[in-house]
């Protein structure tokens, strides 16, 4: 997540003639599989593979896995901005650095590139980018003087390290760039929980029969005691006892918990169809004719507001 300020560096002067070689950013050993892919492409193109490692300790490993020249530099982007690479590969996690370099070099960038190849005549980089979470891939090509790609190390197999491989380590004077983003450290942060109802083991669902805020508070107490998720049916959502993402219905969440407690839910077909998977259903409703009782394992004909305090006391 290191974002460097590139404006301090001289502007690039890159044309198709003065760019050469394939550069790979290898921040740790996990990214070493990028070297394998780089080696494959470089062999077909007949150019060198340069690896940029954070310090000297990774140099040997980088050479063993396919690099010809290794450049130790704490900030890869600062090192690259002083060079004239033709191809640059970054690991997927460093996409922001890759994009910054791409804009600085006026280069095309392929994110999460698959099926990489280089066109012989135009030296364009051809690759595919997964879309819609990987449903399919969009094939793209980029023919700018510098071509940048981010690669997912998990997708590319690493070459077996060959200790006999030879390579050079080239120290370079890399300008130190000040980062304008400061990390103040770890914080305790509770993200708004997205707890999908479909994963809950126990669910306490309320409908309009809960009547008022008092009844709702009792339902919440029950949920807390049982460690249950709160949910609501359509009438409950309409009257404000639950948000849209808490809706249990065919149009909302279809749930299959161990235990489902329906409080004040009359039980229309949309709701009942959504809870068929529940292992055990308990229903509390004032109206004895409510259809929820036809599908509940245990039914209680009572107003939830009256019944809940007794239930809570019994559970203690």
């Amino acid at each position, binding site marked *: 997540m290191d974002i460097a300020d590139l404006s301090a560096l001289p502007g690039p002067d890159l044309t198709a003639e003065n760019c050469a070689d394939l550069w790979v950013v290898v921040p740790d050993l996990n990214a070493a599989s990028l070297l394998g892919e780089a080696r494959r492409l470089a062999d077909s193109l007949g150019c060198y593979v340069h690896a940029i490692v954070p310090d000297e300790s990774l140099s040997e490993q980088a050479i063993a896995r396919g690099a010809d020249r290794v450049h130790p530099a704490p900030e890869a982007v600062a090192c690259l901005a002083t060079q004239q690479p033709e191809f640059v590969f970054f690991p997927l996690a460093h996409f922001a650095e890759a994009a910054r370099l791409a804009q600085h070099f006026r280069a095309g960038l392929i994110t999460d590139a698959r099926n990489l190849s280089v066109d012989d005549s135009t030296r364009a980089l051809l690759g595919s980018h997964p879309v*819609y979470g990987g449903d399919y891939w969009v094939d793209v090509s*980029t023919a700018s003087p510098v071509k940048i790609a981010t690669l997912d190390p998990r997708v590319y197999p690493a070459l077996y390290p060959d200790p006999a491989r030879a390579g050079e380590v080239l120290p370079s004077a890399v300008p130190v760039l000040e980062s304008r983003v400061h990390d103040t450290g770890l914080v305790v942060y509770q993200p708004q929980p997205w707890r999908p109802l479909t994963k809950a083991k126990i669910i306490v669902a309320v409908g309009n029969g809960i009547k008022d805020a008092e009844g709702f508070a009792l339902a919440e107490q029950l949920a807390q005691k049982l460690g249950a998720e709160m949910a609501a049916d359509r009438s409950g959502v309409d009257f404000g006892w639950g948000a849209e993402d808490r809706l249990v219905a065919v149009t909302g969440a279809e749930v299959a918990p161990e235990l489902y407690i329906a409080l004040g839910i009359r039980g229309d077909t949309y709701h009942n169809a959504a809870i068929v998977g529940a292992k055990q259903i308990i229903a509390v409703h004032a109206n004895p004719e409510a259809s929820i009782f036809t599908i509940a394992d245990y039914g209680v004909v009572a107003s939830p507001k009256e019944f809940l305090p007794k239930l809570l006391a019994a559970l203690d």
Partner: protein
Amino acid sequence: MNILVLLHSLLDPAGFTINRRAQKVFVNHENYILNPSDKNALEAALQLIPSPVASSSATGEGQGGGSTVTAVALGDSHAADALRQARSMGAHRAILIQDPTLKQADAFVVTNVLRGVAQHLGDIDLVLLGAEVLDADLAQVGPRLATALDWPFIADAHAIAPSRAPRERYRGKIASGKIAEHPNGGNHRGPGVAVIVKQPDGFHQLTADLPAVISVAVHSNKPRYPHGRAIVDIYRAPEAVEILAAADLRLTAADLTPLVTRRGESFPPERELGKRLEGGLDEVANQLANVIRMK
């Protein structure tokens, strides 16, 4: 604080299926949705300003106490629809960049257009966009824009709050390419932003000076539902979305030439099901652990 939010509308994934045998995408229902993390970005913007437009003012004037949220999108009717959704949720202005030369726009072109919009509007403090774009390689627009504007960039924010950033030289570069002088002179404490991001070891707080570009993590907040009245009024008002062409943004031909061209679609191979892990329990456990680590 004046915030610019980039929106992208795309084909609803629930409306198409992939047929690997025919190597084609079959669109069953052509629905367009707002890119999910762009919605989260819009919500983050609306939470940052004191009072977004709550009701039906189609032109969004006179509210917000000096802070505005401007939504921008490139494209045609689907993008305009996304912008109207944003206006209904509370954005003050919506700008549609509609131009036939932008049909094949890649991330580089989108970045340049957005830089043009930021310069056209003049007083933008913060650019928010979604951290991931479902249907195109546009997540790189964030860092690219930060480089083009020479602003800091923070990726994948879960929460954003205004703060005073640590002492740094003000480096705003919006107006005409000159470094703008901050009213207080150099070496001051300017307005800043504190952002919570997720890193492998937990949540970290990052701070940066404004102006900045921040991408918002998907599902990091719950986008608000627009008020029914607002939806009706925004969709009825033709002036709710302002339309600009590329020429209005003073972009050069080089700015509008894509660097990445689209060649077509390809389909990854099917998942292999029913694979059995052989061997003693320890070995199976190791194999399974490797499989899990690869995920």
